[in-house]
């Protein structure tokens, strides 16, 4: 199979960085092994923290014996909930729903433990190895209680309760009634039913979490280094919890080894480590182990949906009615309740549904909390609607492509308002579908399937025409601001400093933001440095999640540069003995139109602006501007993914024979980085489709607690992809960009699922739940007798 093809782009001299596949400026430190992740920090006199964690899913804590651990040489202290919980605030949920019920989320367990991995006590020692040794010396007397594991059973009468004091396992309910649902179902020729299970997934960023805190007693201020996507959200939330003022806290996200939503949170360990650094007046560091990461860092997905679909004979999908159970785990973390609501909002996908009703019940169970994992509610929505499209086609004997085309809005209908209230900013879904079919050589692929079936082989083709919601998002829709901040400074030497409040952590915005700034200022990209991830330099920010950094953070930089250019025109006018209205700016030079050869560049202007001997009256020295960009709308990237698979009838093994993706993320700043995001997203999606599932047994033991048991794709699992794109600029921001961080994860799983079900369809199989492990597929084949 051909490897991913990329068009060669000729290098230009200085201008025109945007749109070019440029290699990254952040890479040299990473490929040399000299980057600084949290665990690489060297803090003088540092102490090491390790957490005692519950081995039970649900138990009463009868006693905690810490004496032996405290006496262990090198141990500085052992702290339990009784020592700590009243000294710090509880872990917040930023997205509670009205009427929701969740218990106070104390940083360490109180009278009970609620999940395997629940932190019960923390040991602080001079060395990490000593702290680990001392963990074994902390004895906890547990009285095991019945655990709530199955979210459906949790709703039955007489079920044990995750949190007995709440009197219910229901964490929240939420309804989205949109359009005339009953009317649509009355008009339907047919009603289809589809139960869909979205398995629980573990994000498994390669770098586990970790943090280190240092108390500066003289200034009464704290620095927290933490492996997070959201240093600014932490700076907003943490000060109240550890009882210091916001302006006495600096949060630094140093190099971060992957997040995928799992580091979009404020975690108990960050609060405990910060508190202990103050309490012990010494730096404290904690590095998560892989088993801790699998058990006590958020999980994703885990929804069960009963979907009813109202359809017409011609393939028109009128309405969807969905009753969804979301297994939220033991507590609500930062965005837990918001995730399934996003599924409801995006349920119509890229189709003109007349009505949608989604009723969500969030259920507490004795498991780790679910929260945002790459896609965060949107992969679930895309999966439901794209499975439905194939089901409709199968039911009516129609072509899945035609069913999709029949229900899509036409390009002229944009901006397109969905029945759930979203205004899709721009789109041409038909063009992406057409291009994907061309790249897949569709007629040939169909012939290949026919030939395989004639030979008795299980060969299937699946497609997914997805749309997602990105660039989150207008502040009115967000808990604490949906804007982004950026600052640009022309230094006295003429070099350019860009500071972004978005916090990229591997996506490459140190490069793509430099491309944007260099183009806009007309300077060589080598003169631009981008800073991120430190609240002491990036004063404001709402960070990186929901594919928002370039659309929002990039725009804040553009706005700041516009302000600087306006200001610089005044100074240039004075130096050119003209007026600012007559001064023009092009390619990094300021000049009066009639005398373009008599021009001034940034180096001279910056020098004048800071040395300040020749400033016009009233001109404020310096060349710096910052901006908040408040978007008017989200962006709605889209695309078509096509998968062809072959299933081994004897083993149930699914092999991806062909994979084509056409993604439209609006204007492209750096196609190389976009390709990387798409490839990585598809790979995670292949994991979700074929191998990944977080498993707790009936007693609540986590069976997928490390890479030995939780399978993420390896290099041999990922075939070469054929990638393409269409470009439909977004009107929601001046860059015209939409976001691409989650596209692969959203568009891909349904394409693979549809292909697998298509492959199995000669056996009479209409649906199969994820993941399509060999065992599950083999059993499904066996149930149908193994032969078509």
């Amino acid at each position, binding site marked *: 199979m051909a490897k991913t093809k990329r068009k060669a782009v000729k290098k230009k001299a200085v201008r025109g960085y945007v749109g070019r596949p440029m290699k990254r400026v952040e890479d040299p430190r990473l490929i040399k092994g000299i980057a600084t992740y949290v665990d690489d920090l060297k803090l003088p006199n540092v102490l090491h923290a390790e957490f005692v964690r519950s081995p039970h899913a649900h138990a009463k804590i009868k006693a905690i014996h810490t004496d032996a651990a405290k006496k262990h040489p090198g141990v500085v202290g052992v702290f339990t909930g009784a020592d700590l919980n009243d000294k710090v605030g509880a872990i917040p949920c930023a997205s509670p729903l009205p009427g929701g019920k969740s218990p106070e989320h104390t940083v360490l367990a109180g009278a009970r433990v609620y999940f395997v991995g629940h932190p019960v006590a923390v040991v602080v020692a001079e060395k990490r190895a000593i702290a680990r040794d001392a963990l074994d010396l902390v004895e906890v007397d547990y009285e095991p209680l019945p655990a709530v594991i199955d979210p459906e059973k949790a709703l039955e009468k007489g079920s044990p309760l995750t949190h007995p004091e709440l009197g219910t396992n229901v964490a929240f309910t939420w309804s989205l009634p949109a359009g005339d649902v009953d009317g649509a179902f009355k008009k339907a020729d047919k009603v289809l039913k589809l139960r869909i299970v979205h398995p629980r997934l573990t994000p498994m960023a*390669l770098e586990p979490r970790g943090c280190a805190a240092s108390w500066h007693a003289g200034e009464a201020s704290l620095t927290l280094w933490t492996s997070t996507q959201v240093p600014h959200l932490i700076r907003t939330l943490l000060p109240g919890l550890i009882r210091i003022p916001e302006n006495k806290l600096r949060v630094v996200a140093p190099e971060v080894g992957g997040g995928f939503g799992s580091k979009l949170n404020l975690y108990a360990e960050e609060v405990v480590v910060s508190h202990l650094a103050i309490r012990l007046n010494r730096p404290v560091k904690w590095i998560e182990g892989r088993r801790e990461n699998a058990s006590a860092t958020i999980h994703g997905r885990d929804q069960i949906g009963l979907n009813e679909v109202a359809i017409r004979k011609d393939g028109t999908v009128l309405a969807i009615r969905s009753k969804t159970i979301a297994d939220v785990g033991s507590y609500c973390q930062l965005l837990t309740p918001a995730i399934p609501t996003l599924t409801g909002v995006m349920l119509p996908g890229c189709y003109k549904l007349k009505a949608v009703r989604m009723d969500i019940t969030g259920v507490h169970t004795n498991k780790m909390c679910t929260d945002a994992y790459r896609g965060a509610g949107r992969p679930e929505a895309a999966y439901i609607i794209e499975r439905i499209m194939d089901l409709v086609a199968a039911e009516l004997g129609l072509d899945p492509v035609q069913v999709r085309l029949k229900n899509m809005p036409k390009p002229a209908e944009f901006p397109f308002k969905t029945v759930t209230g979203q205004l899709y900013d721009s789109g041409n879904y038909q063009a992406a579908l057409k291009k994907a079919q061309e790249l897949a050589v569709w007629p040939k692929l169909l012939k290949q399937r026919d030939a395989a079936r004639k030979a008795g082989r299980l060969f299937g083709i699946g497609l997914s025409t997805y749309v997602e919601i990105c660039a989150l998002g207008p502040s009115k829709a967000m808990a604490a601001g949906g804007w982004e901040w950026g600052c640009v400074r022309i230094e006295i030497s003429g070099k350019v400093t860009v500071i972004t409040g978005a916090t990229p952590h591997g996506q490459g915005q140190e490069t793509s933001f430099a491309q944007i700034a260099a183009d806009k200022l007309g300077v060589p990209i080598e003169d631009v440095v981008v800073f991120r991830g430190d609240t002491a330099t990036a004063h404001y920010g709402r960070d990186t999640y929901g594919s928002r950094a370039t659309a929002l953070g990039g725009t804040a930089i553009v706005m700041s540069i516009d302000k600087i250019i306006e200001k610089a025109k005044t100074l240039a006018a004075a130096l050119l003995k003209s007026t600012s209205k007559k001064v023009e700016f092009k390619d990094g030079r300021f000049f009066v139109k009639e005398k373009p050869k008599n021009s001034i560049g940034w180096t001279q202007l910056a020098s004048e602006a800071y040395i300040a001997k020749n400033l016009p009256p009233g001109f404020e020295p310096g060349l710096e501007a910052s901006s908040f960009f408040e978007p008017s709308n989200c962006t709605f990237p889209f695309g078509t993914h096509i998968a062809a698979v072959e299933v081994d009838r004897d083993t149930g093994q699914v092999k991806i024979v062909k994979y084509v993706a056409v993604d439209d993320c609006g204007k492209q700043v750096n196609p190389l980085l976009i*390709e990387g995001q798409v*490839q990585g997203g598809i790979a995670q999606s292949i994991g979700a489709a074929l191998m990944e599932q977080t498993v707790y047994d009936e007693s609540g033991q986590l069976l997928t607690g490390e890479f030995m048991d939780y399978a993420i*794709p390896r*290099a041999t699992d*990922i075939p070469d992809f054929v990638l393409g794109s269409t470009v439909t600029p977004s009107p929601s921001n001046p860059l015209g960009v939409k976001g691409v961080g989650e596209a692969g994860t959203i568009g891909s799983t349904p394409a693979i699922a549809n292909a697998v079900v298509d492959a199995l369809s000669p056996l009479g199989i209409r649906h199969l739940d994820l993941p399509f492990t060999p065992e599950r597929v083999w059993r499904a084949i066996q149930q149908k007798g193994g032969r078509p």
Partner: protein
Amino acid sequence: MNIPVKIRVNGTLQESEVEPRLLLVQFLREACGLTGTHVACETSVCGACTVLVDGKSVKSCTMLAVQADGSEVTTVEGLSHDGKLHAVQESFWECHGLQCGYCTPGMIMTAVQLLERTRSPSRDEIRHALEGNLCRCTGYLHIVDAIEQAAKKGGA
């Protein structure tokens, strides 16, 4: 009781007294201050800690420092010489073979070993060689591209 070890790391002799249980990766990170070698799984599955011991790639989270006594160890920090990147490092950069960078040092060391054994591996051979290294960001394809490119350029 601590045990004396002598390990030549990236050409420099490191002499130290270590606990018998100290892992090679901890020795490299803590005693030698070479933090390019990462820990991500602690069970030898993910390969982020891959280094070369006497020329063979080894997962340094499952080898004790005392087992490496008398050995020559090369870490990612030892690959570039006189400011010039190793061909594999160069090609990872060119091909966008990394995103968060956490698995990258292990990936690079594995690739170096592969190219020392096989001059022009096929894409499937490259994939096979990477089976012991996990990456959650890239989807591996740019890594395979990078190793293919490094091979074409001569590998070292």
